[in-house]
Every structure is written in C-alpha cells, then in structure tokens.
C-alpha cells in the first residue's frame, strides 16, 4: 500500500491550482510530481500547490516541490506552495529550505495574487 494521496486540479486561464490531499512519501512522490507538472499548460502564468490537506510530507515531498519549481522556472512560470501557518509540514519545509527557494504562503488567494503580481 503506497502512501495515499489525491491530487485535485483546478485549471484556470492563467493560474492552475492543485490541491494535494493525503500523504506524500517515497512511494508516491514521483507520481504526484508528474501529475502536477502535466497540469500546467505552457501559457499559464503559474501553479499553486495547495498542501493544506496534506497529512504527511517529508524529504520526498520536498524534492518533488524543488523539482517542480525548477521545471516551472525554466518555463518562466511561477510556483507558490500553500501551507497553513500551523501545519507541521511547514517545519519540514523550513528546515530543508533555509534559503527560501520555494515561496510558501498561507492561502490559495494569496498565492494567486502573488503569481499575478509577479508576472
């Protein structure tokens, strides 16, 4: 039984929002990463990865996000990760991303606003 995750894509003209629910670990990080990458059309401004309902997230998830960020950066697209302020996985992200390479915000609205502002 691999980690149980569910990716829900909200397609948009400019911004695609992906809600990732459940767990992400070694067993499913690759699959989830591919789903997210495919969800972003070339002309989109950027992607919001909403981890508000992600119950487990470790270095595999971090790698997923980093790789996704790299891919979008090459395509001139923006990435925002949404993590509620009190979520434990924020700690994980902070530890491994001391440099702040992945922009983390608290809500989807804020993420979308940042992407538009940035574009």
């Amino acid at each position: 039984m691999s980690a149980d995750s569910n990716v829900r894509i909200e397609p948009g003209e400019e911004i695609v929002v992906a809600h990732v629910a459940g767990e992400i670990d070694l067993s499913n990080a690759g699959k989830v990463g591919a789903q997210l990458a495919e969800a972003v059309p070339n002309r989109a401004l950027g992607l919001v990865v909403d981890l508000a309902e992600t119950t487990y997230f470790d270095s595999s998830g971090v790698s997923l996000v980093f790789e996704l960020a790299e891919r979008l950066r090459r395509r001139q697209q923006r990435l925002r990760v949404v993590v509620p302020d009190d979520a434990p996985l924020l700690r994980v992200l902070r530890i491994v991303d001391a440099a702040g390479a992945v922009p983390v915000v608290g809500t989807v609205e804020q993420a979308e606003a940042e992407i538009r502002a940035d574009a």
Partner: protein
Amino acid sequence: METDDRSPSLARLRHLQTISEAALAHLNFDDLVRELLVRLTAILHTDTAAVLLIDPETGELRARAAKGLEEEVEEDVRIPIGRGFAGRIANERRTIVVPDVDNFDIYNPILRKKGLRSLLGAPLLVEGRLIGVLHVGTLQPRVFTDDDEELIQLAADRIAVAIDHARLYEAERTSAQQLRRLEAITEAALSHLALDDLLDVLLVRLRDLISTDTIAVLLLNDDGQTLSTRAALGVEAEAIADVAVGEGFSGTIAATGSPLVIEDVKDDASLTSGLPEIGVSSLIGVPLVGRGEVIGVLTGGTWERREFPSSDVDLLERAAARIAIAIENARLYAAERRARAAAERSADQIRRIESITDVAMHHIALDDEVLERLLARVRTALETDTAALYVMDDTRQILLARAEDGSGDLFERDVQVPLGSGFAGRVAELRRSLAVENVGAEDVISPLLRKRGIKSLLGTPLVVEDRLLGVLHVGSVEPRHFTDDDTALLSLAGERLAVALDHQRIYEREHFVAETLQRSLLPETLPDIPEVEAASRYTPGEGEAVGGDWYDVIPLPDGSFGLAMGDVVSHGVRAASVMGQLRNAARAYALEGSPPAVVLERLDVVVRGLDPREMATVAYAVVAPDRLSLTYALAGHPPPLVIDPEAELRLLEQGRGPPLGAVPDAVFEETTVEIAPGSTLLLYTDGLVERRKMWIAEGLEELLVEVRAAIDAAPEDLLDRLSARMLGDIPPSDDVAMLAVRTAPAHGNRLSLRIPADPDELAVMRQTMRRWLARAGAGEDATYDLLVATTEAAANAVEHAYGPADATFEVEGVIDADVVTVWVRDQGGWRAPRGHNRGRGTMLMQQLMDDFEVKTGEAGTEVRLQLRLNGRP
C-alpha cells in the same frame, strides 16, 4: 369329471382335502372361516353353513361366520349352551341331525325365517375342548346320511383345529409365550389329524374305490433309502416290514416311480417275499409323487387272486396324486409349525440377545460400566449367578479378566488366565462352547469363582473371523445342567459381544491413529510473539472418530501475525490428514503475506481439489504489527470474538464466505477492525457453541455470558473457564478447538516491527506508529516529527540497504517516561547521503529530533532517533 361320475366318494375326498388345504393356506381367522364354509357347503350340497364360537366372556355360542346365513352374524346371534339346535350340539358334544325343523325346538328364529328345512350340525372340538358349533342346512327337506354325518364331523375336526390355530395366530401378538404353550398342545392334535387320521379315512375310501382287501401307505423315510408303512387297512401296519428302495414290491415302485400290478404273488417271488405270509394273493401299487419326487407308495392287496384292469391303476394313480398332496401338505404344515415354533423360540432368544446387543452396539466405546450392564443382561437372560468376560491380551497367550457381574467386590480386574488352563482358558483353547456341571478344583483357576462358590459353568469363546477375542462365561452357585438352548443363547450373546469388542478394537485403533495424527498436526506450543499472550485447547469429541479441528498461530515477517482455525467436516484419519494439508497450506499462504481473503481463496482451491469431496470451515485473521487492528475473513466458520475489557463484546461477523469446498468460485471478503490494546481475540470451532441439542445461537449466547463473567481473564484462564463451564466433564459430542490471543495492554510502551524493504510499506509503518504514539499520548507535532524522521530512516534502508525483494528492516520503539526512542535497523551498509534528497532526509532527522545517531557495523546499519515529548506540543 370322470372320477366324480364313477365315485362320489372320491369327489368328496377331494373336497375334504380342499378343507385341509384351506385350513393350511389361510391363517387370517376371518378369511379362513369364510373359505371353509364355502367349501363345506360345496361338499355337502347344503344351502347354508354357519360357525358359532363360544364367547369366553359369556359362555354363550355366538355366530361368527356364515354362508347363506349372514344375518346370524350381522345380528350377532347368541345362543346359550343347551338351548335350541346349536346349543344342544354344544351341550351333547355330538353331531345332531334335524330332518325337519318343524319337529325341533329351534332357538334361533333366523333359521326359521330363512326357511331352512333340514339341519346337520357337529361340535367343534380341540383336544376334547369345545370351542363352538358347525352346522349346515338345506332349504329343501333332506335326509342326511351317516356318511354326511361322518363328513361333517371330520370337517368340524379340521375346522376346529384350523380355527383354534388361526385364533392362536391372532393371539400371538398378545402373547408369544401363550402361543407356544397352546401350540404345543395343538401341534400333536393337528399333525395327527392332518396325516394319520386323514390317512385312515382315505384308506377306507380307497379300499372301496378299487375293491381290495388291504390298502397300505408306505412313506419314504428321511434317509431316502427305506420305506415304512405309515397306515394300513385290512392288515396291521406293523406286519408290513420296512423295505429298502429298489427291493421287493413297494421298493420297486418307489425306485421306478411307476405303477406295478402282480396278479399272483407266487409267480413273482423275487418281489413279494414275505407277502404270502400276510396272505395277499394279488397286488396293485402306485407311487406317491409329491412335487415331482417319490415320497411313498400306495398299495392294495386282495386275499383272493384277481385282475387289476388299467382303469384300476388309473383310479389309484389319481387317488395317489391327491393323497400325495395331502401328505405333502400335512408334512409342510408340520414343518411349518416346527419352523414357526423354532422361529418363536429364536425370536424370544433374539429379544433376549437384543437386550444385550442394545447395550453393546449403542456404545462404541465399551467401557467398564457398559460391559457390566451387558453382563448383567447375559446373567438375567440365562438366570445364572455370575457372568464374566475375559479378553485376550496382546500376546494372545493369556486371558485377562475384563468385567464381571454377580460377584460385586470379589471381582478383580486383569486376573490372568493362561490359555488352556482353568475353565475360561479351556474354552479359549477349544474354541467352542463348554459346559461343566460340577466344577472341580482344577477347573476354577479364578480365586473369584472359588470364593463365589460356583458349581456349574457354561462358557463360549468370542470369535470374530477366526480370531479369538476372549471368553464369555456364566456360572451357577447351585449345580445346574445347562441345556442346548442355554448354550445356544450364550453363544449368540457371545457372537454379538465379540462383534462389539471387535468394533471397539477397530474403533480404538482408528481413533488412536487419528488422534495421534491430529495431535501431531496441532502446534505443540504456540510461537512466542512479543507483546502477545496466547493459549489454545483441543478437546476430542466423545464416541465419534476424531474430528478435523486445527488451529495455528503464524508470526509474519512484517511483525503482524496470523491466527488460523479450521474444522474439517469429516471425521477420523482422513479428516486429520486433510487438516494437516490445510494447516500447511494456510501457513504457506500466510507467510507469503497474502491477506486473509486471498488465503481463504487459495485454501478453497486446495479443498476443492480433494478427492473424495471434503469441506472445511476456516477463520483466518491477521493482527497488525501494532496489535491495534486485525483483518479477518471467514469461510463458513463461527465468528471470532473480540474481548475488550473496556467495551462490549464484539463478534466478528463481517467478512463471511461459504465453507471451503462448498461452492465453485467462492468469494471471500475481508474486514478490518480496530482493537483496543489489551484485547483478547477468541477463535473456536462450532463444537463449542453447537453442542448436543443446543442451537448455535443459544451456544453463542452462553459463550458471551461466560466470557463476560471472565472479561479480564488471561488467555489460559479464559480457556480453562470456557472448558469447565461450557464443556464440563462430559466429552463434547464433536471435538472442540479454542485459541485465545491477548495483545499487550495500553501501558505497553514498546513497538517492534519487521517490515519488508518496500516503499509501499512506509505508509503502513506510519499508521502503526501513529497508533503507538497516540497511546503514549504524543501530541500532533511530536508525532509528525517522529513519523518524518522514522520514515526518512526507513526510506534510506529501503532505497539503499539492499536489492533482494524479501529483505526486511526492523523498527523498534520505546517510550520511557516522555522520551521516545526509535531504532531503525537494516542489514545493509549505510550510504553517505548523496545529492540533495538524501541530504535533506538526514537534515530532517537531525533537525526534527532531539538526538540522531547512525551506527554502521558488520551486521548492518542502525539509526537511532530520540525525541522528548514534553519539548513539543
């Protein structure tokens, strides 16, 4: 018919014979009497015939059957003895002729109403005892001749005996013993009448028929070699010597089966030696042929020389044919009576024997009590003081006293009697029944018999298919002559006892093999599983052969463990071997890691492949590594029970499927339920809840009641209690298996997992850890951090530790006060973090934990993670 014209007597004779035949052919009383009356009116050419019988209650004559006078019966006419026509016959016990009814004091108005003119009646006597009256009547005035009188008396005699016999036959149902006594009386009368008296009557008519001076009937003796004179007229039967078949006049007829006429005995001396002395000059003889065999010879002789025309030979042959039938009938009848008497005797014996075999056969296991009861019945049947059973020991040289009745405490079991010595030893050696009327000191080897003062002994060997199993003997304190019947009875009892003993021996052997097999197939001890207490019980069923109950506890590689319980439907050695196959198969599938439904599906395939067909019920459950959930599936098996001291009892009734082998393409479903720490899981076979006449629902209810009363009991104590309360001292009818497993109580603070090195297992591991940490009261953040750190360590083990598919790693956890320590061990070498990913994993472990350490040695790598719970929310 030609003979009728020539000789009315012969026609009558034939009729008379038909009465005898009717008497023999019909044993049902009503049929018989009706038939007799029809024939009687035919013989005597009368219009009516009636039988009145004495009513034992009132002593009156009561119309029982009638022909042409049916009103008599319908109106239940009763006539006092001495009154009227029938009453006078009864009173005077003689035939009475009433030529004209008008001149006679008729009591019964029906006779007049019917318009009868003349009457003839005779008493019905059996051995001088009056049982009723037979009478005939005519509508036209008629003069009854002496001949008529003689004939009705003869007919009455036959009818009387036949009626008496038929009555007895009827009465047989009420008392077999009475029947035997009365039959013994009538036997002589009837056989006498039926043959000798019949012959006397016949001879008179024969003599008149062919006008000879002498008539003799010689019958072939049982030896088939000689003829003896059975009846003779005109010459003393004793004067005619026995003659060998093939010799002399009669012997030649018997040998050739052809008629023979000698007109002058002096001309044919070779055939007639001795006959001139009797005084006969001419002889005529014909064979008596019954059912195709010569059974005797009928001869006639004249003092004066005369010729016998072929018409005489004809006539005599015809008469002989009828006489032969009468003789055959009489003999058959006698034989039948003898056979019936014998059958009655043996029926009685069988009843007595059955009272013995009842006991023997209904108890496959012949324990002491059953044997004693059996011997008590033997003793009663034979009216003896003692009855004893000796059995051969395994060496087949010594008899061992096995059971006794009639000596009380004097009896000592297992007293040895060598073959050939003592009474029992001699019976055993001779292998036949033996009676000793006066026991000498040397006969009684058993001090018991000496002390008991036994004087007479009767013994019989117990033999089955030429194998001597033992000796049965009875003893009498008073000197006693044992009759042939006694011997026959004891030997019948012995035969049955021997068969019962043999059955028991076979049964015991089979039972022993099956039980040994089964025991060897059940786990001798349950495996030691950390944090789990387990206990099991197996109770063999009574009487029936060993059942196919089995159970198993199977530790699985991931730290979970399987619990299996099954019940093979058949019994005996086969069931035990099927059980063995199932147990092994279940073990194999379980160790493969197949989930419960899959294990059952595969076992179903195994069972359906068996020939002959077999069925089995199985419950299989896997308790998760954290002991906090279990997944189960059932194949027709009674629901396992989850006993949580803090909650209601739960019967695991989901996940039900058909018994294994019951239907093609069976589908099994598994269900997962959470179980609280310290829960006990009870598996059992239906023998526990489906005992004797108890419905399974009732049994289940009783089980729940008993379990509630022992809700905190440890597995061993729980099973002891269930055994004692639900099974008691009496062996259950079916075998019963129970398996109880208790998980560690909530204060248990250790975690021990063995996990396949597979990324897919990480989520399972975290699920287990979550429950473990929740029990320890860890908060959300601390739990999250520990899960991440442990998963990072585990992922490292999975990714880098090794390649083989069956590799595993261990996770061990301890919570000491508020410090959680987790060790993740594998057998591979630690690889320095490569690239960003692994580096991040290590970083996470370091940062999230209070303490993090990696030890790498020959055996493998150990990562230690430690976190103080109080430090986190």
